[in-house]
């Protein structure tokens, strides 16, 4: 177990490093330089600026410097979006909003999806199962922005219970309902499908027959015996789901005009604000990798049979 954890942590660090390097070299491969604007400064000025920001040093040196700064939490400063503001402080301001919405979405999607999946598997080949399957298949076929706009058109606006726009001065629980619904819908459908398949697998196992012949109640069999075994694939999906929810958040934040990190990231890409793009990418990537790591380690807790040393999956 410690060996496995060490290996996974090493892989996670390596991933973050690779993402950081990819980001760094992609940013430096772009033609042009930060000083290009309507009035290009004189060559001597550019030289001085380059010297000041360390841009005259060879690339590897710059990379090491950048990584060092990154470790100290210094991602540089924005050059376009919010001039000269430290990227770290922007992230610190915007990320909690995104994280809150993401966390609520994941929570409700899991809470709803697992019982639905169980129900669907338990009532296999009945109208309940068919309906749930149809709904879930439609759910995974609708892009996030379609779900979000349908919700907006039907539930938001004047005379309807929810606000259409995120009002920074007036954030109530109502503001969260629609974004979280929209963001959690796809994972909910996906998870329900996943749970159903895993449950069907589990229900057909011998130990379920044993449990039934012992005279256990159906509820106990489903939730205590079958579900525990069916949860493994569900947890497998949780890691990528966190990534998806964060990235899916881009769309939801755009539709509902939420001032979160996702929207800021996309805006910074369109504005080509490179320090922001770089800082945000590395931050989000680290976050996702850490979440994946935690989920991976959770396996062991849920199912002690899994032998992690022999290839985690």
């Amino acid at each position, binding site marked *: 177990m410690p060996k496995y954890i060490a290996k996974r942590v090493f*892989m*996670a660090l*390596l*991933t973050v490093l*690779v*993402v950081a390097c*990819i*980001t760094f070299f*992609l*940013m430096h*491969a*772009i*033609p*042009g330089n930060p000083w290009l604007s309507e009035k290009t400064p004189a060559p001597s000025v550019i030289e001085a600026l380059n010297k000041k920001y360390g841009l005259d040093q060879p690339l590897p040196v710059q990379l090491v410097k950048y990584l060092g700064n990154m470790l100290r939490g210094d991602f540089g400063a924005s050059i376009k979006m919010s001039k000269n503001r430290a990227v770290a402080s922007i992230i610190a301001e915007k990320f909690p909003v995104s994280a809150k919405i993401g966390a609520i979405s994941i929570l409700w999607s899991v809470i709803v999806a697992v019982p639905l999946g169980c129900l669907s598997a338990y009532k296999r080949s009945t109208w309940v199962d068919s309906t749930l399957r149809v709904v879930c*298949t*439609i759910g*995974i*076929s*609708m*892009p*996030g*922005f*379609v779900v979000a*706009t349908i919700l*907006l*058109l039907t539930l938001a*606006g004047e005379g309807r219970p929810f606000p259409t726009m995120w009002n920074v001065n007036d954030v109530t629980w109502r503001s969260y309902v629609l974004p979280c619904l929209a963001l959690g819908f796809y994972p909910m459908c996906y998870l329900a499908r996943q749970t159903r*398949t895993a449950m*069907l*697998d589990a229900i057909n196992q011998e130990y379920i027959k044993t449990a039934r012949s012992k005279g256990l109640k159906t509820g106990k069999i489903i939730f205590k015996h079958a579900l525990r075994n069916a949860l493994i694939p569900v947890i497998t999906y949780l890691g990528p789901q966190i*990534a998806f929810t*964060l*990235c899916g958040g*881009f*769309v939801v934040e*755009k*539709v509902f005009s939420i001032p979160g990190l996702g929207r800021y*990231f*996309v805006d910074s*890409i*369109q504005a*080509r604000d490179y320090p922001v*793009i770089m800082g945000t*990418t590395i931050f*989000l*990537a680290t976050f*996702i*990798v850490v979440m*994946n790591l935690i989920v991976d380690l959770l396996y062991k807790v849920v199912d002690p049979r899994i032998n992690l040393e022999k290839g985690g999956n």
Partner: protein
Amino acid sequence: MADKKMKKAPLGSLQPDPDIFDWNDLPADDVFEKASGQEKESFIQDRKSVSYWADAWRRLRHNVVAMVAAVVLILIMLFAFVGPMLVPYGYAQTIRGAENLHPWHTSLQDQLRVEEEIQRRKDVLQAAEEEALTAAALPSWEEFKDQYVAEQLAAEAAKQGGKLTRQRENILKAQMANEAGKAYAALKEQAAADKDAVTISTDEETVKKELGIGNRPFGYSRAELERKAAGEKVFPHVFGTDYLGRDRMVRVMIGARVSLIVGVCSALLVLIIGAVYGAISGYAGGVVDTVMQRIVELIYSIPEVLVILLISATLKPFLDDYQNAGKLFSGLVTMLGPNLISMFIAFALLYWVTMSRIVRGQILQLKNQEYVTAARALGAGGGRVIKRHLLPNCIGQIVTTTFLQIPSAIFLESFLSFLGVGVSAPLTSLGSMCSEALAGMYTYPYRLLFPAVILSVMILSLNLFGDGLRDALDPRLKK
């Protein structure tokens, strides 16, 4: 025969089993009866050999959901690929005088009627206004002021009991002027409110409703309606037009086409890279496999969407340069647009991982089977074994995974286009059309509706057909 019978060898003896010698004694010719021609034929018919694909097709045919999905898919493909040929408008063609058309119209006569009615109502309104002005006989400002001041002064004088001093009068007058202004404004407002109370609506929609004129399907501009009335054949704007006067239906068709092409191309890219990588990794085993799998794990844990956004952001300037440099393939770059190319590159870099894992797993299962050993004993090299023996045997999984890659690629493309880093103008895609429609969502929900519905139905039927395909090609997986 008897002389050939030997003593039965003891257990474990290396001597041949004596019974074996009996085998050489062929039975007499008449023991067996030859099969008649008819019997032979019926024997063959009984066990008609069924190929893998025929078997899969039989299973697929009985899957109603998958077949319905296939029909829907074919319709969407016709819509996307044949449709633009039938509609006489280009996707980037702006039609003057046909901007912002609804997907419905009112006939020319009705339009004239509405206009006449509006004109009539306007005349009536104007007349009423003049009438109201004269009737209310709102006094002019000067008159009103003088009268107001005089009244107030008189009241004040009465209060003071007699006459006011000259100075006092002047001060009061100055104060009064201000109050008079307020009073006059209130009076005017009152008059305006009275006038509004008798207002008849001149709004086009309201007039249409009041005249009982309904909408007819499809959008036509005024000029087109006139040409139609003159006996010319005019193709309607079935979904209306956008703010530049571009036909929405053609744009939806082209968007669907772009989505499908992106989906299929990405799936093919993923198929080629993933299958080759997975096959080599699985077949080679050992250190090669370990190294290759570490790389796969690494790529697996990189958040793809971030990298795709990043790549499309950074590649764009290069591709723009390349496009203008006029080198080889720059025509292709222009045709596809820089964003689409960076999307393909991102797919090629990141999305083959799942496919390679599946292929590797299959190869690992298959590579120790006898026919592989036989092939190698006959001198076949690694490449030939993979190509001729291993890959064809996991074709079911490969086809299914490739097919299910299409909807997820379309999903991603629409996601990127929606965020504005996908397909670039003037080319369009369903995602960018949805994004454009977002602004006027409440006023013109249909602008969002058409691309969103086509997109969702397309992904849905691809998913359903893919599921059916999986069940048909790999019945063991059926749940």
